[in-house]
């Protein structure tokens, strides 16, 4: 089947099968699982994943064709994103055959939901300084500690867990990766409200949670290299998504604001012009990155520049919009009050603006690295987290 036919077929399938509207929250998960099963059975889940483990074994070209067809629909795949974008690809790359056999197909069919367990209260940008311990006990490991910023954990069946297995070596060298059963006794998931008042992520507590050694991913103390694989997949899926949402439903977009502000005032008009300029500049940059990707030029760390710019634009426009709106924005349920309450999220999820600038400086511009004080010290002697 040629690409155009593939796209047409995908479009037709989606027209027949994609849900016409968001399901009510209550039975969202069940319906999302139903849809994923249909998607899988139709051959559109795991398009580029190896056939052997349940994928379709096709190329990026088919995946892109499907993504283009899917752009006209809102697919209920949110809870599967961590599995499909990060933990699944990590298992394909680094898991054992037994692990692939056990986990990939249920993941692609939406039977099992995944979360990722890396960040901790004391280890955000600096993930490798994490403190959750996994101690060997025969053919099992005993996990104790706390993770945070975990999306969809309250629905998750499995989690990809990075834990410390040796404190006597430098921080990157004493980590190991595991698959942990989220239904295991001792795993506590606590929703964590963000500053807008919504519970968009979770804290996870591990209290003597047992993990069989066969659920270890990669070698003991080689977890950092596995994590780098996961983070690479994370960055790819973020940078692919950057700018995707666009300004359509944004109450702080030029289009939305022009309906509600006084454009008879030249100063207000000029503020909207400034917002238009910045919005167009970033949208065109994202389109150029997408065109380059299609032409085989891989954006790499330049995606971090786009993510940084999106974080700045998101804040700039919510701030500008609330100033234009004036006192009305003082009410929590005003759309622009919600916009200003969620605007920092774009900067704080997926790496702070400072981390993005480091990445652009180091990897795009090739600037010399910051001198590192944390790469040679045994972890137990290293300063981490928050301390005087």
């Amino acid at each position, binding site marked *: 089947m040629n690409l155009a036919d593939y796209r047409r077929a995908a479009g037709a399938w989606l027209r027949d099968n994609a849900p016409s509207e968001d399901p009510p929250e209550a039975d969202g998960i069940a319906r999302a699982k139903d849809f994923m099963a249909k998607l899988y059975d139709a051959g559109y889940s795991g398009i580029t994943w190896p056939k052997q483990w349940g994928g379709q074994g096709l190329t990026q070209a088919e995946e892109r064709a499907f993504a283009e067809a899917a752009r006209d629909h809102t697919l209920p795949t949110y809870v599967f994103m961590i599995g499909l974008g990060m933990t699944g690809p990590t298992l394909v790359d680094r898991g054992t055959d037994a692990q692939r056999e056990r986990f990939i197909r249920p993941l692609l069919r939406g039977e099992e939901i995944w979360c990722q367990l890396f960040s901790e209260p004391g280890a955000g940008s600096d993930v490798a300084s994490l403190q959750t311990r996994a101690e060997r006990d025969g053919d099992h490991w005993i996990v104790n500690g706390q993770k945070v910023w975990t999306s969809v954990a309250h629905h998750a069946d499995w989690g990809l867990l990075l834990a410390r297995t040796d404190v006597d070596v430098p921080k990157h060298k004493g980590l190991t990766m595991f698959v942990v059963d989220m239904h295991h006794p001792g795993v506590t998931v606590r929703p*964590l409200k963000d*500053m807008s008042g919504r519970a968009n992520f979770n804290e996870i507590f591990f209290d003597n949670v047992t993990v069989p050694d066969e659920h270890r991913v990669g070698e003991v103390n080689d977890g950092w290299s596995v994590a780098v694989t996961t983070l690479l997949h994370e960055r790819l899926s973020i940078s692919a998504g950057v700018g995707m949402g666009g300004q359509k439903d944004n109450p702080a977009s030029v289009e939305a604001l022009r309906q509600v502000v006084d454009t008879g005032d030249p100063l207000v008009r000029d503020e909207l012009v400034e917002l238009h300029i910045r919005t167009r500049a970033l949208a065109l940059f994202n389109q150029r990155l997408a065109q380059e990707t299609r032409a085989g030029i891989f954006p790499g760390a330049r995606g971090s520049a786009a993510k940084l710019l999106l974080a700045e634009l998101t804040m700039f426009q919510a701030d500008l919009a609330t100033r234009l709106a004036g006192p009305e924005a003082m009410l929590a349920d005003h759309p622009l009050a919600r916009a200003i309450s969620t605007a920092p999220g774009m900067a704080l999820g997926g790496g702070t603006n400072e981390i993005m600038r480091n990445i652009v400086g180091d990897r795009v511009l090739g600037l010399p690295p910051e001198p590192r004080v944390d790469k040679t010290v045994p972890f137990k002697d290293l300063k981490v987290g928050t301390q005087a």
Partner: protein
Amino acid sequence: MKLVLSEEQRELREAVRGFLRTASPLPKARDGYDPKVYARLNGELGLSGLIVPEEYGGAGAGLSELAVVLEETGAALLPGPFLATAFTALALTATPDKELLTGIAEGRVAATLDQGELSFDGSAASGTLPRVLTGMEADVLVAPAPSGEGGGKVLLAVELAGPGVRRTALEPLDLTRGLAEVVLESAPARVLGPAPQAGVGDRLCVALAAEQLGVMRAALESIVAYAKVRVAFGRYIGSYQGVKHKLADMHGKLEQAESIVRYAAWAADESPEELPEAAALAQAYVGRACFEVARDHLLLHGGIGYTWEHDAHLFYKRAKADEVLLGPPRIHRARLAQLLEL
């Protein structure tokens, strides 16, 4: 021009700061208005009467002193009707009313001032005010109404607990200060006098800028303290220039904001002809700077600053709510253009 606090003003600051540190720490500010704290503020420290003239039982202090207090209530994100009552007292300097001023001075009456115009039939007022500052907490509402004679306006006082008043608590962006919708249907109202022509709006601008100065100072202190204890990649984050240089820029904004607030408060007290420009400058500069500092203080906290449990968003939201409290910020810039005769 006086830009440095006097000995007495420094003592006032220490007294208020010390009181709020124990009486209204941040975790408490989240729980909203505590009438007991407000009563002590007015009782032990006599703050509600600070700017009330002595003939009405107040301390007869100036806006310079009020600014010192508002900086501290701002830094503490103190919930409740203190700012609204101070706004009202400022309006009453032009339209003095013995009953109300005495009640405010004695701490018996919490008041709120609204710019929304009511209708008035000579004894009762009607109208809908969509966002009254601490409208649930205040006892008395002061708002303008047409005087019926020659197009002038009067200031009315309405007992909010009285008949004909329907109040609905609103969910505010800023968790630490309430807003209410107030609907009056023939609510008994009393004429305080002619509505002030000018100057009151300027004084509100200065008072609010003083609160904003406190908000930005506390936000900067919070992130500076965090930058000294939070470690990433084996170093305190405050040792990274990416953080340090931002904090230095925030400090420059704070220094300038403080200078402007001192100047504008001095102008209100001592040099009325400079007040309009100083007041517009205060809102145009300090309002913006306060939000920028609160924004960057939140962002520099990293992920923890995005959580509901952390206090960073309290400062951020107060800063944003304050920035728009007296209207879209561009009105202050437009006023400056007009005053500078550009």
